[in-house]
């Protein structure tokens, strides 16, 4: 199984393009800051991975008219998808049987929470009522790239974008689509800030993945999309292939609505499925881009699952990039897919920032300094609420 990746687009706290993101990663430049765009009572006790552009600035960038009803999530998604389509050199999006598979967890919640009661007093706001759901985000992205055809959205919390990549690869593999734009988008919202706050898994400082003293995650916002194309399109159009999706797996932990199981059963099963499909062995993996949210529960559970797959002494170089970007929820697996491809293209393992003390439960030390080496295969994990566990394997050739 392998499906070609021919384009990528991204906007995150560490950069507004693929190049800017890569530059920040190799320079060790994180973008976890005080929150600027959302008024919240928690402003002094949390830090976030925020894209320092206002909604007006994003709308101007997209050339939207004043009466548009794009949520921030939709704007971020539209910007990233547009970049991906351009990067893939696509001039006529409907030339082949093309699909869009978006992923989001908050959808248009950022506008809903802003106007909650005001809708009834200000008719100018009513247009945003239709911008609340995940489907509206996908429709706005489709409109931006001019796509008319197969459009759907996946929402499985923090593994959403991995599942979008998975479905896209499956549809191409089965010959149902020739080309598909896959990824995810999520804007910061009071809703998620308060949600994760009540779960007591937000750190008051900078997140420290796989550190024994980790205190929780920083939320972030981002969008990233990738263009997947069939061998037929790649051949006919003599496309430059950036990398391949070579395996994937989704499994359910079936343990708890929000917590991961002690031994990482779901994560283990997802990785196992991905290896089987990719026809690769654990020893073929050169770099693991961990989910690594820096919550006590995730890093322990994920670490145990990784040990079950690779063996404690044979875990390849690994890092979590969440210390750079924050946890971008439904966009996380998409931005990390872009980072995985860049890792292979440039032969670089990104540093796991903020790591000091190894965890007591096992001997797993993330790569803390940038490392240059040949990377043929990257494994990327993403896990979400509802026990949703996803793994995608990317290969250079």
């Amino acid at each position, binding site marked *: 199984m392998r499906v070609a990746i021919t384009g990528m687009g991204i906007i995150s706290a560490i950069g507004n393009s693929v190049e800017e993101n890569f530059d920040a990663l190799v320079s060790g430049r994180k973008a976890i800051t005080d929150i600027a765009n959302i008024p*919240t*009572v928690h402003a002094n006790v949390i830090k976030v991975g925020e894209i320092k552009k206002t909604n007006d600035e994003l709308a101007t960038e997209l050339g939207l008219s004043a009466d548009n009803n794009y949520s921030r999530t939709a704007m971020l998604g539209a910007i990233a998808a547009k970049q991906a389509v351009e990067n893939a050199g696509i001039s006529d999006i409907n030339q082949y049987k093309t699909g869009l598979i978006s992923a*989001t*967890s908050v959808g248009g*919640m950022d506008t*809903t929470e802003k106007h*909650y009661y005001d*809708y*009834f007093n200000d008719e100018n706001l*009513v247009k945003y*009522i*239709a911008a*609340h*759901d*995940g*489907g*509206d985000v*996908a*429709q706005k992205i*489709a409109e931006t790239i001019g*796509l*008319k*055809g*197969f*459009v*759907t*959205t*996946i*929402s*499985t*919390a923090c593994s959403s974008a991995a*599942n979008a990549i998975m*479905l896209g690869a*499956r*549809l191409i593999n*089965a010959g*149902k689509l020739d080309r598909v734009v896959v990824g995810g988008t999520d804007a910061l919202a*009071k*809703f998620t800030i*308060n*949600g994760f*706050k*009540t*779960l007591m898994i937000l750190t008051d400082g900078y997140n420290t993945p796989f550190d024994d003293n980790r205190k929780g995650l920083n939320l972030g916002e981002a969008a990233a999309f990738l263009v997947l194309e069939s061998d037929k399109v790649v051949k006919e159009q003599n496309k430059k292939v950036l990398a391949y999706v070579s395996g994937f797996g*989704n*499994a*359910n*932990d*079936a343990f*708890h*609505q*929000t917590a991961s199981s002690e031994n990482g*059963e*779901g994560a283990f*099963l997802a990785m196992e499925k991905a290896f089987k499909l990719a026809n690769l062995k654990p020893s073929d993996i050169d770099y693991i881009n961990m989910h690594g949210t820096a919550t006590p529960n995730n890093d322990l559970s994920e670490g145990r699952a990784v040990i079950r797959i690779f063996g404690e002494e044979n875990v390849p170089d690994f890092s979590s990039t969440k210390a750079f970007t924050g946890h971008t929820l439904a966009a996380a697996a998409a931005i990390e897919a872009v980072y995985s491809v860049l890792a292979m293209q440039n032969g670089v393992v990104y540093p796991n920032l903020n790591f000091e003390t190894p965890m007591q439960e096992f001997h797993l030390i993330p790569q803390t300094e940038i490392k240059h080496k040949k990377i043929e295969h990257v494994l990327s994990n993403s896990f*979400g*609420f*509802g*026990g*949703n566990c996803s793994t995608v394997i990317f290969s250079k050739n």
Partner: protein
Amino acid sequence: MKTYINGIGCVSAQQTFEGEFAATFATNENLNVLPIVAPPYKDYFSPIAARRMSKAVKNGIVASTIALDEAKLQMPGAIITGTGMGCIEDSDKFLKAIIDNKEEFLTPTSFIQSTHNTVAAQIALGLQCKAYNFTYVNAAVSFESALLDGKLQIEEGEANSVLIGGIEEMTDYTASLFKLAGFIKKDEEGTFPMLGSKTSGTVFGEGAAFFVLENQKSDSTYAEVKDVEINNEIAAEILQLKVFDFLAANNLTVADIDLLVTGINGDAHFSNYYEELTQKQFAGTPQVYYKHLSGEYNTASAFGLYVGANIIRSQQIPGILKSNDQSRPAYKNILLYNQYRGLDHSFTLISQA
């Protein structure tokens, strides 16, 4: 590999969770938001457990249990749900608490359960099903996305049996917003007929419908799912052509379709799409509609599939469903067409197994 519907569970504004198909169906034209006919929840979970569950979770668990029981399936090879709006009862609750209490004194319960994949996750948790678990949230094609994925799982041999479902719940707050936005017909209209309606907006509802898809026929088989296609936009002028292409891809023509099931919802502003089919090439084809019984909601088309599958199995069309007076001696191929506000068009083809 062929895909068969071998079990169905449905909770809706009608009594659909047990008994003979359509026996008690009744139209209520006096309401613009239809409440569900609640199943006996106590048969499915303890009152204590039920108190923590939203309507979506309760109805999803009941409907999926009925579908699995009918198919005599204990452990599905995948669980795939669709929900356009998600668990809005819990997300409304959490959001209101954030705003009313100025981000203080919050508890996580409703946040935890507000995630779109809560129903699929709760079913997996209950069954201890560690298989593939997906949730689609794309407005009116949320359910069709799940159906399409489920069919793909079976076609490609990824799973032998798949549990798919569409779930939607309504809340007072969302209903008030939908009225404000004109999605729900104005209260002042008083009565809300769906056929021949001259006003915009529709009558909303809620519900859950689950289906067991399997790669083998069984005693409980309703129909074979032949094909599903979704399109975000189709210009009305080319809608017929798109349908012909869809049928041609399945080696069928208009004449082969014995029944057209449409998502007519009484919204005069967008009824032209349905009329492209009902009043032109399919004018001589028997036609049924169902949203006068279920109400409109993002996954109401799952109720439509429940209707279509039952008609194909029983070979009878209950009068209350008919939207024209055509009939056929046999109903072998059924085409379902749905769209919402001109977007998210779906074609679903089911055939006698």
